[in-house]
């Protein structure tokens, strides 16, 4: 299908199915039930899941294939966001120019950063990208305030020119739309105790993600992708065979920068504002976490990682001590207090602690991320069924992209 091999088509179809039916899948519990707090089927979170999925897919094209660890990718997302907001301010409230220009501007910026940073590799490359990102962050916060809005950030105002749009009626706030469909419009379907929300913005972002995912499969399977893998496995040997690797790594860098720009543009389309904190280096760190957690160098890994982190960030951080106590209330008092005390540091505001520990465990024991973990478990089951020895499981443990 679309020039993909069979296994990849299946993967793509699974991803399409998951994104289309996400409002159902993420809302498995009826409203008003105790478990309703685990529902993630509300528009804001669903949008974030797919948008950060795009960001992580793009990062994976650079890190997963070439092994270059960029610690400044959030800068491209931030630059893309700013460009997007400016398009909304200057041209039209339609999101298409915003998204397209975000991608182009982020691509141009990543071309500049990549051209300089890729002259070095290893830790130096990481530091250079980090330096560029921190510079962009500092500038956006201080000198470039006329362009970026500084601390308050950038958002559209009623008085903006919007030269392609007709003037807004009195009292109407500017809302982003796609040919009249507003991004934050939703259709709510009530089935029994369940409420499923179908959001315009989410589906637009989901279409972008499916397209981004398809493109990343094509890149992974192309001769170009093979060349990027060669860079990762042994750049020196590649150079000795007379191949200049820089055009390939630079292309990968720019592609992943454009993915970040797309994510930034979509963030703006969903919620028309941009702030400098999007470029802070912790934001760059987060996309690294997503990609590694899911499985760097695998196709589906980054999407899983982004979904995992964003889901738990929203859900786990909402659980507080009271909710915990109701969970353990069936136990005798002393024991339930003990459990609550033990778990409390890891939930709510302690979410980052859980994330840090989880991330360390993944780096130490599962360098292939969740995908490798899944394969290991699948391998165990297979072995039990076949009764064969561990040879098959070790063969399948290697990330089969």
């Amino acid at each position, binding site marked *: 299908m679309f020039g993909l091999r069979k296994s990849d088509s299946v993967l793509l179809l699974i991803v399409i199915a998951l994104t289309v039916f996400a409002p159902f899948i993420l809302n498995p519990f009826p409203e008003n039930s105790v478990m309703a707090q685990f529902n993630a089927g509300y528009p804001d979170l669903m949008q974030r899941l797919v948008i950060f999925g795009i960001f992580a897919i793009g990062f994976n094209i650079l890190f997963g294939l070439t*092994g270059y*660890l960029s610690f400044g990718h959030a800068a491209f997302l931030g630059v893309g966001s700013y460009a997007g907001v400016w398009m909304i301010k200057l041209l039209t409230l339609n999101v298409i120019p915003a998204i397209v220009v975000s991608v182009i501007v982020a691509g141009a910026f990543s071309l500049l950063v990549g051209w*300089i940073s890729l*002259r*070095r*590799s*290893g*830790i*130096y490359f*990481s*530091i*250079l990208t*980090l*330096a*560029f990102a*921190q*510079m962009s962050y*500092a*500038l956006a*916060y*201080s*000198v*470039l305030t006329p362009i970026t809005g500084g601390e308050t950030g950038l958002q559209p105002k009623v008085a903006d020119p919007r030269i392609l749009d007709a003037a807004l009626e009195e009292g109407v706030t500017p809302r982003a739309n796609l040919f009249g469909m507003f991004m934050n419009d939703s259709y709510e379907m009530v089935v029994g105790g369940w409420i499923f929300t179908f959001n315009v913005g989410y589906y637009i972002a989901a279409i972008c993600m499916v397209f981004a995912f398809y493109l990343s499969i094509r890149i992974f399977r192309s001769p170009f992708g093979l060349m990027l893998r060669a860079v990762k496995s042994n750049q020196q040997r590649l150079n000795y065979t007379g191949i200049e690797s820089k055009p390939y790594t630079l292309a990968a860098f720019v592609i992943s920068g454009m993915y970040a720009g797309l994510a930034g543009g979509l963030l703006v389309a969903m919620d028309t504002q941009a702030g400098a904190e999007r470029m802070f*280096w*912790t934001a760059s*760190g987060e996309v*690294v976490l997503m990609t*590694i957690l899911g499985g760097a160098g695998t196709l589906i890994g980054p999407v899983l990682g982004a979904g995992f982190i964003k889901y738990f960030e929203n859900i786990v951080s909402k659980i507080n001590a009271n909710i915990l106590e109701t969970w353990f209330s069936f136990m005798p008092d002393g024991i339930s207090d003990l459990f609550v005390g033990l778990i409390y*540091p890891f939930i709510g*505001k*302690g979410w*980052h*602690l859980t*994330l*840090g*520990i989880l*991330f*360390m465990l993944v*780096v*130490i024991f599962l*360098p292939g991320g969740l995908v490798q973990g899944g394969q290991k478990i699948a391998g165990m089951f297979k072995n039990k069924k076949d009764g064969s020895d561990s040879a098959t499981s070790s063969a399948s443990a290697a990330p089969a992209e």
Partner: protein
Amino acid sequence: MEAIVLQILNGLDKGSAYALIALGLTLIFGTLGVVNFAHGALFMIGAFCAVTLSKILTLSHVVIDATKKDFLGNPLKVEVPYIYDFVGENAGNIIIDWAVPLSILFAIPIMVLIGFIMERGLIKHFYKRPHADQILVTFGLAIVMQEVIKYFYGANPIPTPAPEAFKGSLDFGAMLGFEANSIIYPYWRLVYFSFAAVIIGGVFAFLQFTTFGMVVRAGMADRETVGLLGINIDKRFTIMFGLAAAVAGLAGVMYTPINSPNYHMGMDFLVLSFVVVVVGGMGSLSGAVLAGFLLGILESFASMTAVLETLPGINQIIIYLVAIIVLLTRPRGLMGKAGVMEE
């Protein structure tokens, strides 16, 4: 002229912090070949050692003071630190006042212990893994350390003042023969700079003039050969990791009066310290110290009003800008050795 001297002085204390952290980072990198992203967290933990000690010292119990009455005529309840019971009120006050310098003694064993545990428990298993993995796992560790501190101490900065004797400022201008009050420099910053100089001197002397240091230097140059000579180099490198952790921790302890510590102060310093290490040259101790002071001073020059008028915002980005230029023109950094992490 006054302005220039003032900016150099201003740059020294920030430069001292950069130099101390960068020195520790380079020690770890030079000996163990590990890129330690958790080093900023060690700096932060050092600062919280000072916070902890001053909290312990001011632990108090309630005493009913019969001599004082509140407005209803009842005896007033007064909180009395336990330390008064042990050494008397005057001595107790002095000890509480000097909590930050005293924390040096408190922090050294703690930091060395944390360093040992980190090296033996985690970093040891990452020698053979790629640098990217080392960065990632220490990055995760830094998040964990940060969050643990946040859990116990909260997210707000905790003011930890310097001893009374060091409050106030030195009129440096008058000493140098400029006009009075033209160059004012807080005493504690002077203390911080001298402290940093002593620590840096101590580390260098330790490496240069002791047999242990000689073995460590030999190990940095050629680990395998030193091992073949029958010397347990791993054990010595572990000790060096503890030392590097202690240096970072002490830098943090002494920094608390300058900036109230909060849980993410380490990360803020870490990013800059990495830039410092890279500018100085990976694996070069003197390069790290030199670059630390150089960048600290450059940063304070860039924040002068005259400079900001011509190049707005330059103070925010000068360090990164210098780093980019140095990395592109001198791939080994200012004083890097040939063959150490060139790619």
